[in-house]
């Protein structure tokens, strides 16, 4: 039987429209807006000035902060603006706006690398320089994940191919079409961390991906493909570890503390691609779907292409009621289609009214369904109620910070209470209080 974790929900998956369509390359747009913040951590400082000509793959932003990752030009052309622009995180972020000259003139520094000739330290440095961040949606700089704190020995590298969010088939197509790259990326991660055993967890609704990965791994014993039962949030780091390795991350710790590093399959593919070609992370696969999209599918998009450009290319049948970056469970609603595709944009969903029913919250009936499905084994209803009343100390006591906002509680709540939203608000208040000292 396929493995899984405790708790979780079964939302309608709605992947059928895109999961069998091959990845198509989207033509590069006239202008790209490249935010200097596309990861969790410190914002990059711009390395180019307005009016300057930049090459394809040129580093245009970097930072000295320990948790940060450089960004690169995804087209060649001229920098026409350096200003704050709308960002998928909902705020305005300093971005480099480049006018495309359609020459795709590659930066002279770009040259293919050979993994076998590089030491683990060189590879780690390269992963940083190539601007690789978690492409599943988290956006945590990959190089920072691969350096364990003192006293910790890593013993497993786990690739996340669960893709449990409805609609999204990005990772699915990446695994099917670029299985060799995924495996090569995993080998690179294993070399950097000195780990002998790698795992790729894939939900069993992607049998073709499992088959392709097994073919790519062939008879090698160091990589194991783990079929997982279909359940949300299987792709959450801690749940994936529980499902694949039957290990639990202790409260308040990170997977690295139990010797595990988890990365998305698309991240691994990007590492392999950047090694093979020498190009940094300048494009990614994005699922474009939703009832308002004329031609749903998976597209290979230059980083910095606006959602509007992508949607124009794929056609709209109607004005979308809601525009999401990411999946419907954890994705964020966009306030404008002018936001650019970032390294961690896994999907663009233009949902119709019928796909995003408005609900009105009612009183909690104390059915405890949210507690049953919570994969982190906390009490969503209690934390949300404390959050709603501004009693965030109590919310923290009951484990608000354990919550990774998968939204399973809100999904099942028969009273339609926006539980995860209240918990998120409580969390932001707790962090704000901590920052105040």
């Amino acid at each position, binding site marked *: 039987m396929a493995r899984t974790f405790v708790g979780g929900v079964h939302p309608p998956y709605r992947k059928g429209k895109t999961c069998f369509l091959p990845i198509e390359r989207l033509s590069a747009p006239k202008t790209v807006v490249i935010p200097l913040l596309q990861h969790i951590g410190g914002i990059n400082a711009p390395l180019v000035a307005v009016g300057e000509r930049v090459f394809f793959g040129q580093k245009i932003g970097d930072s000295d902060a320990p948790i940060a990752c450089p960004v690169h030009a995804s087209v060649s052309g001229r920098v026409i603006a350096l200003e704050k622009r709308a960002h998928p995180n*909902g*705020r305005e972020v300093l971005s480099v706006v480049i006018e495309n000259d359609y020459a795709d003139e590659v930066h002279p520094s770009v040259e293919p690398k050979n993994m076998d000739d590089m030491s683990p330290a060189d590879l780690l440095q390269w992963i940083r320089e190539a601007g690789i961040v978690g492409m599943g949606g988290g956006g945590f700089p990959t190089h920072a994940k691969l350096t364990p704190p003192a006293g910790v020995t890593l013993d497993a590298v786990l690739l996340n191919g669960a893709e449990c969010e409805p609609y999204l088939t990005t990772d699915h197509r990446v695994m099917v079409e670029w299985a060799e790259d995924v495996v090569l990326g995993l080998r690179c991660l294993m070399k950097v961390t000195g780990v002998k055993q790698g795992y790729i967890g894939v939900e069993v609704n992607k049998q073709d991906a499992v088959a392709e990965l097994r073919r790519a791994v062939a008879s090698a014993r160091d990589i194991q493909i783990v079929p997982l039962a279909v359940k949300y949030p299987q792709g959450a780091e801690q749940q994936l570890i529980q499902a694949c390795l039957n290990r639990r991350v202790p409260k308040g710790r990170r997977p690295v503390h139990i010797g595990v590093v988890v990365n998305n399959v698309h991240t691994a593919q990007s590492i392999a691609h950047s090694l093979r070609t020498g190009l940094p992370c300048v494009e990614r696969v994005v699922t474009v779907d939703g009832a308002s999209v004329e031609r749903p599918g998976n597209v290979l998009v230059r980083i910095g292409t606006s959602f509007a450009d992508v949607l124009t290319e794929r056609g709209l049948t109607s004005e979308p009621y809601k525009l999401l970056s990411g999946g419907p469970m954890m994705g964020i609603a966009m*306030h*404008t289609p002018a936001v650019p595709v970032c390294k961690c944009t896994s999907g663009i969903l233009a949902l119709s009214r019928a796909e995003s029913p408005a609900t009105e919250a009612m009183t909690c009936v104390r059915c405890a369904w949210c507690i049953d499905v919570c994969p982190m084994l906390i009490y969503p209803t209690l934390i949300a109620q404390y959050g709603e009343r501004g009693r965030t100390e109590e919310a923290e006591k009951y484990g608000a910070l354990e919550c990774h906002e998968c939204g399973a509680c809100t999904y099942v709540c028969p009273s339609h209470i*926006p539980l995860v939203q*209240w918990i998120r608000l409580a969390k932001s*208040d707790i962090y704000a209080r901590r920052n105040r000292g």
Partner: protein
Amino acid sequence: MQIDFRSVLLALGALGALGLIFGAGLAIAAKKFAVQADPLYAQVLGVLPGANCGACGYPGCAGYATAVSKRLVAIDKCPVGGNDLLGNLGRLMGVKAKLAADRLVATPYCDGGCAEAPTRFSYEGIQDCVAVVALSGGDKACQYGCVGYGTCVKLCKFGAITMDDNRIPVVDADKCTACGLCVAGCPKDIFSLRPAGKHVHIRCRSHDKGAVVRKICSVGCIACGLCVKACPVDAIAMSNFLAQIDYEKCINCGRCVEKCPTKTIHSGL
């Protein structure tokens, strides 16, 4: 049925005896272990308003009363009681209180409701100003204005704030105690405390340039400077594209109200 009166009497007698013994025990304990309550504490608590709003920084009136009676804190920390309370506390504690010149009233400095200020997107999340502001600074096109989800109404312990049909808070000056909870809790910092006797207000917080304000709000300050020129006592100053009144100088003449082209300056409230 025959009743055994002896058992009944025995039970009554036994219970009665137990009651007497425990009663005596409690009486002795009450005398022997009596805690000396500070009479001052009870008196101080008696004159405090009893709103338990927490504006003094202590957990409720009892907490503040304890601190005051132990002379750990100044007596002017309660904004609710006003000058009456200051006088009473001063008498109780034997200190001379400095009376506030004028009563303060909380006032929202934004008048751009649904009718005047358009939104950038439609928001369906939880109906709370802090939540909507966490999302891209709120749905209002104006990044300085009131988002209108009524967090101040929930915060006010005195029922002094209501939202009008235009989704702008209205403060009932009679009920407002100037406790400052709305001032501290508003994510857009719309509220300020102003002297109750002053009734000319520039109801805008926007530091956007005039051209920007014109596009996103019909009652926002466009920093034209007409009010600065009109003011006979130099009470209005322009700072960072926003006119601001110095209430210490303002004489309530209302000339700025007449001049203001966008009707940002109001008289009354």
